[in-house]
């Protein structure tokens, strides 16, 4: 039984990929956050650390696995910068249909990935701008985990954090551990 195709543009030749509508993931993520944060939210909508860690951990597990799949068709990635660029381009393209808009680094292990319009934030809204910004913070936990997990599997151990600049623009900061 084929799933309803096909918001995803890319289909690899020679393989039939089952595809799932993107909204399935969006709804799943909303419910996932609801379920994990049950009662664990403060009045600002922030998750308690345990719940936050769980969500980030889920992202880590998925990102770790996706790294294997998404690096299958390409050559060997060697330098950390190459690997970060892979995240900015191929990886981001696969998970949110666009590349990272801007990459900055201090050449000492810190990278800032700038997404001008982060796809998974675009459907969020609330009555006031500040509240929207607060609420969106917890939707950044899973993507942070995704990045951290993918990098870990490709040999780069790091911490990943994110913040909303002006909605829906956000920055992901990667700090490589040594």
């Amino acid at each position, binding site marked *: 039984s084929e799933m309803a195709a096909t918001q995803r543009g890319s289909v690899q030749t020679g*393989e039939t990929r089952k595809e799932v509508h993107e909204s399935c993931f969006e709804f799943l993520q909303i419910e996932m956050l609801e379920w994990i944060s049950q009662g664990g939210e403060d009045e600002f909508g922030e998750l308690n650390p345990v719940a936050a860690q769980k969500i980030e951990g889920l992202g880590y*597990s998925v990102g*770790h*696995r*996706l*790294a*294997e*799949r998404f*690096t*299958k068709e*390409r*050559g*060997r*990635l*060697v330098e950390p910068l190459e690997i970060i660029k892979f995240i900015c381009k191929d990886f981001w393209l696969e998970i949110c249909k666009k590349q990272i808009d801007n990459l900055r680094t201090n050449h000492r292990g810190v990278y800032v990935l700038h997404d001008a319009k982060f796809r998974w934030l675009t459907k969020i809204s609330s009555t006031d701008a500040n509240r929207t910004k607060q609420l969106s913070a917890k939707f950044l936990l899973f993507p942070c985990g995704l990045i951290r997990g993918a990098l870990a*599997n*490709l*040999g780069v151990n790091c911490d990943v954090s994110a913040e909303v600049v002006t909605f829906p623009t956000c920055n992901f900061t990667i700090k490589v551990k040594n």
Partner: protein
Amino acid sequence: FGAMRIVCVAVVGKGKNPLFIKTFDSQVEPLKFHYIIHTSLDVVEERTNATASGRNLYLGLLCPTEDYKVYGYMTNSKSKLIVVVDDLDVKEHEIKNFFKSFHTIFSDAVCNPFYTPDEKISSKKFENEVAAIVKQKSPEAHNDNLAYLSENSN
């Protein structure tokens, strides 16, 4: 005739930890293949270390032994795929195609949420899929001796 005969395939983790070994020659002691695979990992390391220039995942012929040829492949997650073939007429492009399929099957197994990364692969589905592509590439009748890694062996 002259078809290659795959006698053993293996998946090795990020270090030298074997995640999966399957042999296809009942006439040979499985331990012999374990040893061959372990030895070939040194060559993999040489070919993929920081100073090595190759950017291919496919590493080519690692080491010929008395009776066999050992081919290697390392994914971007530093998982190694090893294939041991009988020393008959081996066509490079066939080995490359085999690794491509092998990698796809491995990647699918890794995406299984019940699989813990870098641990032994115990999925029956994976084992069957691997056996199927081996059979595809080695159409001659060969003995399907299932000497794979179990929980108890190391």
